[in-house]
């Protein structure tokens, strides 16, 4: 049933948006910025209201006169701003309902969207309360009507039972205090609107709260023109001794008040309460859209090589942005095509979008729009990064193998020297892709710190049967040419925090941690840093001396090796067990820490939930799993191996 409304609704929205694209182009189509335009109009309302408040007099004898002075005494400032105040408020109602209708039509209100939906319903009430309250202030006949109608409506409630109207039934009952109260409400409720707006958008990744300036500018100019052409006027001074007969009516804000005089207050309460309840419950009403597991799906994002959870009903773009993936995007409405990417594996619901943004041929070739598509299975996505941290461009480099040094029975240190004396700039923790013949790529983290930019250390672990790692261990020799692309990835040391850092390295996950630590030492970072390096047996701990040297040289650094299965011959007296359990034993409260974890997906997946139950904030968790999760396909295990696992 819902689908029968959604489908034609989507068709209609897409057709109208396509029509607007002809005029505005895909990047400046106002219909793609309905929420942001609502924000922008709210600021216009607030700004114009502040000016009006300077001249508004909060007394029963002067309220009307002060608004008349604003309207007629300074028509090109006060008059225009009064009109903008009203028309922008009406505009908020239009854009707010269109925004709501689009999200409902495109099925973006269920599942995890419930929070934004519910706060949106609260905003509806608050915007209406603010607007209706605003109509009381000029104390004209409209104000008289709105005030009395509000009292008559609320008097139906058992708590009032006909007593509220007594405050407005005789002229003598209205005094200056009423206007102080109304002004207080008219400041307080819009503040609440802005507060709930902040909450409403805070949980939406990269939510736009300002439209592009050409849209905001044109809209403002259009409102000014409308204000000059048809100024908002008062409708004669209020006179409680006379009945309100006919009014010029604001049908954006007052339709419920019209209903009050065509039905009983009780019926109007039932209508409003029923509509509110229906709106509030919509995310949970049938039919359920359950097409996959409740916990959603996983996606592997390339070139970042990160594995990210996608919640039920969440677009790939939202999931990526939530995890700070630098996906390119613009309209977020399937119109501009900026977020076009390649579906390398898995099934998706492509969603509703403009054919100009994604042609059928592109779709057949495996392309999708990140902002429209939702996963129907675990997926792999390849996208073209527009920008990476620090605006460091990604490019292809040529280098030569300078040396090969075995670090352990299955780990090889490979030093690359860039050709032509070039230097590469990267962030500590990032990685590169070695380019193989046939177009395949192998990912390895920089083990060197960024300050050593003329040569690059990789720590490559031998994977039996692995094409490239076998080549490294058996055939690679000094002088061999290597081509790679980079720097890549968003796993890097954040310097905008003073919290102590816990590094969690699993096996060759030590490589990016080494880069980060050497960078931190060189920078003179004084934050407390502890490295937990988890390996299976003592022989897998391939650089303990280096870590112990750091410990001796830097008071703020501590090294804790953890062996999960120490061999008898290891005669190990140190920590044993799983590395994250060792951390939790030492740090039962992680609320004041940052954690950088680099290891297998299994390690990361086991560690993070445990860390979070011990107070670690999601914002302080940084990880770059370097092996594909079992949930993602297994026929390309060599695809992602940050830290050099294959």
């Amino acid at each position: 049933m819902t689908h029968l409304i959604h489908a034609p609704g989507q068709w209609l929205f897409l057709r109208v948006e396509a029509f607007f694209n002809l005029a505005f182009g895909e990047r400046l189509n106002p219909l793609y910025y309905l929420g942001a335009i609502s924000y922008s109009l709210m600021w216009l309302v607030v700004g114009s209201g502040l000016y009006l408040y300077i001249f508004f007099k909060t007394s029963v004898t002067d309220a009307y006169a002060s608004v008349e002075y604003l309207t007629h005494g300074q028509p090109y400032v006060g008059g225009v701003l009064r009109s903008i105040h009203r028309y922008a408020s009406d505009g908020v109602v239009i854009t707010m309902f269109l925004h709501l209708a689009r999200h409902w039509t495109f099925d973006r209100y269920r599942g995890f969207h419930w929070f934004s939906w519910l706060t949106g319903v609260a905003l509806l009430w608050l915007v209406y309360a603010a607007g209706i309250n605003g109509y009381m202030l000029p104390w004209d006949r409209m104000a008289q009507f709105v005030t009395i109608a509000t009292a008559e409506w609320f008097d139906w409630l058992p708590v009032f039972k006909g007593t509220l109207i007594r405050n407005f039934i005789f002229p003598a009952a209205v005094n200056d205090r009423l206007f102080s109260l109304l002004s207080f409400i008219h400041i307080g409720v819009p503040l609440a609107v802005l507060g709930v707006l902040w909450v409403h958008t805070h949980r939406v990744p990269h939510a736009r709260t300002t439209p592009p300036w050409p849209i905001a500018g044109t809209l403002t100019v259009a409102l000014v023109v409308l204000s000059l052409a048809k100024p908002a006027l008062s409708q004669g001074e209020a006179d409680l001794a006379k009945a309100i007969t006919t009014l010029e009516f604001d049908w954006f804000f007052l339709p419920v008040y019209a209903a009050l005089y065509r039905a009983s207050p009780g019926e109007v309460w039932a209508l409003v309460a029923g509509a509110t309840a229906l709106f509030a419950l919509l995310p949970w009403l049938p039919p359920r859209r359950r097409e996959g597991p409740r916990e959603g799906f996983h996606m592997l994002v390339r070139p970042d090589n990160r594995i990210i959870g996608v919640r039920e009903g969440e677009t790939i773009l939202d999931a990526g942005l939530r995890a700070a993936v630098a996906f390119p995007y613009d309209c977020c409405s399937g119109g501009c095509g900026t977020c076009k990417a390649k579906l390398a594996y898995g099934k998706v619901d492509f969603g509703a979008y403009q054919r100009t943004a994604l042609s059928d041929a592109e779709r057949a070739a495996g392309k999708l729009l990140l902002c429209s598509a939702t996963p129907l299975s675990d997926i792999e996505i390849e996208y073209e990064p527009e920008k990476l941290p620090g605006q460091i461009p990604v490019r292809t480099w040529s280098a030569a193998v300078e040396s090969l040094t075995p670090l352990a029975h299955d780990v090889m240190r490979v030093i690359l020297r860039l050709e032509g004396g070039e230097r590469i700039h990267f962030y500590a923790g990032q990685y590169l892709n070695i380019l193989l013949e046939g177009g395949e790529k192998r990912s390895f983290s920089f083990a060197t710190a960024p300050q050593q930019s003329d040569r690059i250390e990789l720590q490559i672990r031998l994977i039996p049967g692995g094409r490239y790692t076998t080549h490294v261990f058996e055939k690679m020799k000094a002088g061999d040419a290597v081509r790679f692309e980079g720097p890549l990835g968003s796993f890097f040391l954040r310097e905008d925090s003073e919290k102590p850092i816990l590094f969690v390295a699993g096996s060759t996950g030590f490589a990016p941690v080494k880069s980060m630590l050497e960078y931190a030492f060189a920078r003179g970072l004084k934050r407390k840093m502890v490295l937990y390096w988890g390996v299976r047996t003592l022989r897998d701990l391939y650089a303990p001396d280096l870590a112990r040297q750091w410990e001796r040289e830097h008071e703020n650094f501590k090294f804790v090796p953890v062996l999960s299965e120490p061999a008898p011959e290891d005669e190990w007296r140190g920590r044993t067990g799983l590395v994250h359990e060792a951390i939790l034993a030492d740090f039962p409260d992680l609320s004041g820490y940052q954690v950088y974890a680099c290891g297998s997906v299994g390690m990361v997946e086991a560690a993070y939930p445990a860390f979070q139950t011990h107070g670690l904030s999601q914002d302080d968790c940084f990880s770059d799993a370097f092996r594909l999760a079992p949930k993602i396909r297994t026929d390309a295990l060599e695809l992602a191996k940050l830290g050099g696992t294959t």
Partner: protein
Amino acid sequence: MKKALQILFQLVLYVPLMALIGYFSTAPRFTIVPEKSALVRLSFVHAAERLRECRERTPEELAKLAPNMRAALDCPRERAPLRVELEFDGEVVYRREVAPAGLRRDGAAAVYHRMTVPAGSHRIVARLRDRASGEFNYVREATLDLAPGASLVIDFAAARGGFVFGA
């Protein structure tokens, strides 16, 4: 040229939006009270008499009470409901029995009723009983000429003798 046409097209698309806002912010006009009608509202808040009369306590009863609680009269708190009737040109248009407010029914009762009537001369009778039984103990009747758009408020103030017909 194409850019100019596109900008023109954009401006053209803003026109219907502004027209929509400009029009529906004031139109169509809404009629609350028709032009040739008047508004009559019955509104008052009044505390009725107690449901049962006060009783004088016996000396024995007083002796059982704490010294500071020895009031001579024992007055039940509950008040009688108000019985209200409004007759308009010989026809009863409003008749209610209104319970006192409060969990113990010891508060004042509030009455509110609005009606739109044709402008002109009308015979209005308001009746109230604020005790447990008996006939209406407050009655006021008057013939009033209500102008179009006039607002008549029928209030009640026992101190002023009962119903007050006024603007």
